[in-house]
Structures are given as structure tokens and as C-alpha cells.
């Protein structure tokens, strides 16, 4: 166990699927935020509607955080199974509150409780709710009241939420308010309020609390996306939900389609016609899209797709997290063609990358795949707002040039590989966007020299892109002794760990090299850092094979001596990074 102080207080609400754990967790996170604390919310849940066990964990601090701790201080359990599943995540001296009559622990659990000096409190929340004239599910409102009281939080936000939810049911509102008051008035037996000693943020109203999928959906609006097509698949489904929820404000066409093949084809069709359309899926859905990806490559049609990663193969762990689909994004689809793969890691990048992806897709007339992860898609992050989005750049032939166009300019062979692009309705000069090998006007050809020349032209776009896309981002000291090389949400745990080490182990000089533009992979900065730290490069990825490491090795021959790979469906917790650095550096 690490002895580094985490400077966090961690609350975990756990129960069965269908018990409202997610709602309780979100309400609590919002109340903590409203009170002025930094929060990071993390969900674990099974792919079930009822049963199993799930939890909502909120890390609380006065420092920015983008990752979770492995252990918690306060565990609130609403079901028996969840007690047994999560008891061992309690830190020494932690407190378990549960709502279960006659809960029994195994001898091993008893021993654990004694050794760790855990405090345990039973709250008959169902009885309390019933005493107020409420139903069993209102035990959740009682539980929220108890947690608010214990953490010293104001109830105003919860009251507002209840008032909004039961605006048309005044009697239900009254009962729920009574349940909340009963929770707030609850007198504990063993429970000790934690006395959170965190400095409260001023101007908390300037901060936004949302998930990565919210940021992607907002990014789509800013990027001028006018159609979103998708087939539901965790962890990308909620992008569809959010955009559909907002469709009357945005006027965006949001369409659930019959399968991912249609999703990809419709998106490409809409882009070909000249609007901006986006689609989102997960690895399995993207498998179905790879033939269409290849079609976009050959017809040089811009195409942007969000791939939310979760562990495979097959259905794998559908509601858990992973970064195992980088190779799928980079190598998926038959044949060879230029493409770009970017990876979000937090709210800011999730929002910003959508607009950047469309600009790249339209500039290079190619597919841009935006990788995200369940850990980003569904976790609750705090942000102070978003950067100005990249200006929309279409790279279409301007009206002034339309009259001088020739059909053979559409796929004209150029040094950069990029040809002029225009769309139906724009010009009387028409062309064939041909999935068969073609001449510069799109007419079919199987002739040897022309086929090779057209192939060269398309592939040159990859080199053009490599020269123009950004290098990875470096965080850390100017003269590091160790450098963590990573991408995606792993960056967040690494940076959170480094922040803690600044005070607990200031002599340790560790930096993080974070790949947001993953493919084509740029390596100048990596090689520069390697010249400083030698073999002290640590590859950290949420997959088994170290897929970014593989791309880097392919490009440079570099082999990572130090690798921390995690593939159990869980994200990197801050302790994972701290423990590894403690053992390795």
C-alpha cells in the first residue's frame, strides 16, 4: 500500500443495478461541487438492468483531479452483494454505512474489519422512508440526506432537483422533502463526520461538471455538425442521448440507425454531399464500419467517427474501460490509405478534438477517428470552461473558382496528395467518386502506371499529415530522469500522481509524454526525451500489448524496457502509478 498522502477524501455509493446508485452518486457529486470542492466521479456497473453490483465513486479535494483512487474513506451500500464486493476498497479507518437488516460478514471479512479498524453503521433507510409515508425507493433520498449532513453540504441543490422532478406531483414532492429532512436529521451511532479540511473554490458557478460524452456532444455542436448517426453501444450511447435531448435547440438531425454499417455509410453520404455529419460507436461497432472506412479512403471522402473503447474481444467487459482499440483504429479496414487517429483524455480534449478532427478530415479528405474510453465517456469531470474551438475550415473549392473547374481536378495527382474538393449541387462540373481504382476524374481504370500513381497520390497524404500534425504534449520538469509515455485517460492518473509526488518526493523527476495525435505517430520529441533519459521511458497503457508502444517501435525501432499495462477493465487509479514509480524509479 502506498504511504503517500493522497490529499483526497473518497466517497463511494454502491448497490444493485436499478437501485438508483448512479442518480445518488451524481446528485452527491453536484452537491459537493456546489459547496466548492473539486470532484471526480467514476462509475462501475455491470451490463445488467437489475441486480449485480455497481458503484459511484467521488474523489473530493481542493486540488484539480482527473482520476480516481483505488480506495475510499466512506462506503455507502444499498445492497448486500455490494457490501461484499466493495468492503475491501475501504482505507484503514474508513467507514461503512449500509441499509441492510441482519447483514452478516464472513470470518475473513470480520478479520479485515478489525485489522483496518473500520467503523460500521446500519441505517434503516427503508423504514425511515416508510415512516415519512414514502416508498422503498425513497430510501435513496434518506441516504442523500445522511450523506449531505455527514459531509457538511447544503441541501439546496437536492431540493431544486426534487422540485424539478416532481413539479407536477406535489404530494410526491412533499414526501421526498420529508425523507430528505429525515436523512439530514439522522442521529448516527458510530458514524464520525470526516471534517473535510479542503479550501473551497471561489466562484464555483464558473465551473462545469460533466462527462466526456457531454464534451464530445458539445464539441460536435461547436464544430458545426448537422447530423449525428449512431447505433446504441456502450460507452458511446450517451452521445446519441445527449444530442437527441438537445436537438430542438440545435436543429441537428439525430438519427438512431439500423446498424453500424448504415451508420458509417449514412455519415459518409452526408459528408459527401457537403454537410458535417458525425457518428459514434465502440470497438465492436467499428469492426462493422471498417469496410466503409476503406471506402472513405478510396473515394477521399472526409469521415469522422468516435470510437468509445471498452475491453474486448467479443462483448468482453461491455461497461468497463480499456485502450485496446488503437490498433483497430490505425489498421482497421482493407487496403492501404491515409488516415488520422486522435485520442481524447479529458473534457477539454474531448470537446476540442471534434472540431480539429473535422478540419483535418476535410483538409486531407480522409477519415479521422476519435478514440475515447468508457473512463472518459462516463466519468464526471470538473472544468472551468472550454477553449475557443478551432475555426471551421471546409477546404471546399470557393465559389469564385467553380466556373474554371475541370472534372479531372477532383482526384488530380498533386505533390501533397490533396486535390480540389467540391460537392454535388456546387458546380456543373461533375465527377465520379469511385470506390474502384480510378483516373483523376473518377473514371474507372485498371491500367498499371495510373493505378500506381493514384495509389501514390493517396498515400502521400499520410506524409503530408505527419509533417503538419502536432507533436505529443509533454508535462513535467525540463530535465526529467524518467518519462511516462502514454495516451488517453492513463495520462490523467499519471499527472495526478506526479502532482502528489511534487510534495511527497520532490527529488523524483518524472515527466509525462502524452499522445493526443496518435497516428500518424510523431516521434521527434520522444527521441529528444530519450536522449535525456535513456532507457528510463515507461510505457503506460490500458491494454495488454502496449499498442502505442508498438506504433512507436515500428516507427523508430525503440523498445520500451519499462511497461505498466493494465487490462482488467479498470482504469488506472492514482495508486497504480504511485506504486509503480515507487518500485521502479
Amino acid at each position, binding site marked *: 500500500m502506498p504511504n503517500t498522502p493522497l490529499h483526497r477524501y473518497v466517497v463511494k455509493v454502491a448497490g444493485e443495478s436499478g437501485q438508483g446508485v448512479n442518480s445518488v452518486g451524481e446528485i452527491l457529486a453536484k452537491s459537493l461541487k*456546489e459547496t466548492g470542492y473539486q470532484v471526480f466521479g467514476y462509475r462501475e456497473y455491470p451490463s445488467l438492468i437489475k441486480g449485480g453490483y455497481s458503484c459511484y465513486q467521488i474523489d473530493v479535494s481542493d486540488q484539480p483531479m482527473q482520476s480516481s483512487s483505488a480506495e475510499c474513506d466512506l462506503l455507502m451500500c444499498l445492497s448486500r452483494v455490494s457490501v461484499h464486493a466493495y468492503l475491501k476498497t475501504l482505507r484503514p479507518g474508513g467507514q461503512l454505512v449500509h441499509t441492510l437488516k441482519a447483514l452478516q460478514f464472513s470470518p475473513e471479512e470480520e478479520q479485515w474489519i478489525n485489522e483496518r479498524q473500520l467503523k460500521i453503521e446500519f441505517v434503516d433507510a427503508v423504514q425511515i422512508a416508510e415512516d415519512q409515508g414514502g416508498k422503498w425507493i425513497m430510501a435513496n433520498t434518506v441516504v442523500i440526506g445522511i450523506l449531505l449532513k455527514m459531509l457538511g453540504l447544503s441541501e439546496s441543490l437536492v431540493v431544486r432537483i426534487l422540485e424539478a422532478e416532481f413539479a407536477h406531483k406535489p404530494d410526491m414532492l412533499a414526501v421526498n422533502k420529508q425523507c430528505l429532512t429525515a436523512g439530514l436529521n439522522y442521529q448516527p451511532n458510530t458514524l464520525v463526520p470526516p471534517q473535510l479540511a479542503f479550501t473551497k473554490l471561489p466562484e464555483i*458557478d*464558473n*465551473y*462545469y*461538471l*460533466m462527462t466526456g460524452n457531454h464534451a464530445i456532444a*458539445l464539441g460536435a*455542436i*461547436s464544430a*458545426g*455538425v*448537422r*447530423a449525428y448517426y449512431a447505433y446504441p453501444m456502450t460507452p458511446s450511447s450517451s452521445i446519441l442521448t445527449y444530442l437527441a435531448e438537445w*436537438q430542438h*435547440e*440545435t*436543429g*441537428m*438531425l439525430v438519427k438512431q*440507425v*439500423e*446498424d453500424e*454499417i*448504415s451508420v458509417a*455509410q*449514412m*455519415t*459518409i*453520404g*452526408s459528408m*459527401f*454531399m*457537403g*454537410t458535417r*455529419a458525425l457518428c459514434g460507436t465502440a470497438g465492436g461497432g467499428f469492426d462493422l464500419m471498417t469496410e*466503409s472506412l476503406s*471506402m472513405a479512403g478510396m*473515394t477521399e471522402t472526409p469521415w469522422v467517427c468516435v470510437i468509445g473503447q471498452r475491453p474486448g474481444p467479443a462483448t468482453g467487459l461491455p461497461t468497463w474501460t480499456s485502450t485496446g482499440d488503437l490498433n483497430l483504429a490505425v489498421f482497421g479496414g482493407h487496403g492501404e490509405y491515409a488516415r488520422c487517429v486522435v485520442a481524447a483524455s479529458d473534457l477539454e480534449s474531448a470537446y476540442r478534438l471534434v472540431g480539429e478532427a473535422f478540419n483535418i478530415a476535410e483538409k486531407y479528405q480522409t477519415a479521422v477517428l476519435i478514440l475515447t474510453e468508457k473512463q472518459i465517456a462516463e466519468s464526471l469531470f470538473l472544468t472551468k470552461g*472550454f477553449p475557443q*474551438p478551432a*475555426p*471551421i475550415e*471546409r477546404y471546399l473549392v470557393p465559389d469564385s473558382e467553380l466556373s474554371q473547374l475541370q472534372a479531372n481536378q477532383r482526384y488530380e495527382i498533386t505533390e501533397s496528395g490533396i486535390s480540389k474538393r467540391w460537392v*454535388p*449541387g*456546387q*458546380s*456543373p462540373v*461533375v*465527377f*465520379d*467518386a*469511385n*470506390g*474502384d481504382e*480510378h483516373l483523376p476524374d*473518377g*473514371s*474507372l481504370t485498371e491500367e498499371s502506371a495510373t493505378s500506381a500513381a493514384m495509389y501514390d497520390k493517396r498515400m502521400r497524404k499520410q506524409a503530408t499529415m505527419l509533417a503538419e500534425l502536432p507533436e505529443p504534449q509533454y508535462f513535467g520538469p525540463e530535465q526529467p530522469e524518467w518519462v511516462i509515455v502514454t495516451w488517453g485517460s492513463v495520462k490523467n492518473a499519471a499527472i495526478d500522481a506526479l502532482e502528489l509526488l511534487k510534495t511527497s518526493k520532490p527529488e523524483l523527476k518524472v515527466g509525462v509524454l502524452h499522445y493526443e495525435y496518435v497516428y500518424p505517430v510523431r516521434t521527434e520529441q520522444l527521441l529528444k526525451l530519450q536522449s535525456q533519459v535513456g532507457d528510463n521511458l515507461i510505457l503506460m497503457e490500458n491494454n495488454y500489448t502496449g499498442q502505442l508502444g508498438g506504433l512507436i517501435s515500428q516507427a523508430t525501432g525503440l523498445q520500451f524496457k519499462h511497461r505498466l499495462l493494465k487490462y482488467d477493465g479498470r482504469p488506472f487509479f492514482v495508486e497504480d502509478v504511485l506504486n509503480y514509480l515507487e518500485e521502479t524509479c
Partner: protein
Amino acid sequence: MSENCSCSFHDYYSDNIYTWCTNCGNYGIHAAVKRALVAECCEPKDTLLCFDIGCNGNGSDKIGGYRYHGLHGRVIPVAVGAAIANRRVKVLAFGGDGGTLGEGINHLIHAVRGNYNMTFILHNNLNYGLTQGQASPTTKLEMKMNSSPDGVSSTPLHPARMILSLNPTFVARTFSGDINHMTEVIRRGVRHQGFSFIEIYQNCPTYNKATPHQWYQDRIYDVSTLPDYNARDLNRAREVAEDLENKIAVGVLYENPDEPEFLKRVANRQNATTELVDEVKPGSIESILNRFNQ
């Protein structure tokens, strides 16, 4: 579209040389498509023709207009995506019986449900021609084909019966031996607001010797020759569509102009005065963002 358009047959002409077999039904179909587009004043600039993979798809560079020649079985969704984005451009899609009823049959079914505003033309020649004469979903039972030397053992699909079961808004049939008839049917399909399904019985002189042009010529009749035929009567359409062996009904079997096309059914788009292609500009997120700071 303007009534006094200057569009001519020549505008759809291509210098590229056809690569179809002599007597292939595709020649007549191309001629009819061009005639129908010109008659409906669809200028090449405002027309998108989408092609599936197969013999008909190899004609994508032998005709004018904007064209998209995509993947086998996937022509419908790419055309749907295009049609949704800009209704000022007429979208027609062409696919064979293999791609449409085999690999991509789900797309066809959902396109009928969606009533997307486009015309789909099914080239039904009862086999896979380009891959050299394998059985397709419409090949007749016991027919000996390249892939089934002992004869086809699966029950053939009846395309019109299937489509008519889906409450479509436009269903027509015609055959590649009659350019005038095809032209009239395609014109009506192009005019229809919604998903127009047109099945063309197509001659395949190389791989389908069983049902050449003469075979169809001897059996077809236009539904308009039936006394009191009403193309608004779905059950009547289902009755007349049944027979594919003796008396084969062609023409517009069913048409329902009252059902709104896809975008007219979508609550947040039905009153839009612009097309999706006109609207690409930074959207405001302020009002939505304000829900996340409390």
C-alpha cells in the same frame, strides 16, 4: 426544379466506353434513366446517382451527374445520407438483386420504413452477373447456377411482396426491354416525395438464359390496363404483384403521396427552411453549457 430548364440528353453523355455484354439490360436502363432525368429537368449539377457493386455499378463512369460508386450491398445507406443532407439534389440509387436482397437487405427494409426522399432502382436479373453467374436471392428454385450445380435449394425472395408488406409509399415494376415504360416509371419515382422502390426485370444474356426479354415480353401487362385499378389500394397492389410466372404486373403498383418523407416526419427538421449542407457553422453551446454549472 424549373419548368423551363435547359437540360438535355447530351448532358448525361459520357465518353467512357460501356463494358457490358451485348444485349445486356443495363443499356436500356441507362437510356431510360437519362431520358427520365431530362424529362424531369434534373440537371447533372443537381443530381446524384449512387451505384452498388455489380455490372450496373461498372456503369457509374459512363453517365453524367454526380456519382458515388460505393460498396457491395451498401448503396442505399450512402444514398440515404446524401439525400438527407441536401434535398435540392435529386438522389437515385441503383443496386442488383445480389447486393440489395443478399448482403444489404436490412438497409432496404429500413429505408422503406424511413421513407427517405430518394429513388431506388433494383436491377433484378436473377443472378450475380459480375462474379460470373452465381445464384442470387431471386434465382428460381432448382435453377442450376455456378455456385449451385445441383440447382438452387432456397425459396426465392419475392421483392414486391416483401416491400409491399412494409407499408411503403411507392412501389413500381418495369422491365429492361421497354425503354419507354421504364422512363415513365422512373419519372414517377423521381417525382414521388419519399422512398421510391422500382424493380426492373433485367435481361442477363450471359448467365440467365431462362428469362430473357422475350420471356418477360410474353407475360407482362401494365396495371393501368386493369379496369378500375387504383394505385392507392395497398391490398390490391399486393394481389396483382403476386404472380411472377404467368401474368406479371408492371407499372406503378402502389403510391401514397400523403405520407410525409423522412425529414417531414422529424419534429425538429420538418419546418426547416435550409438544408443540412447550408448550416455548417459554429453552433452556440452557451445555453446548454449553463445546465452544467449548478
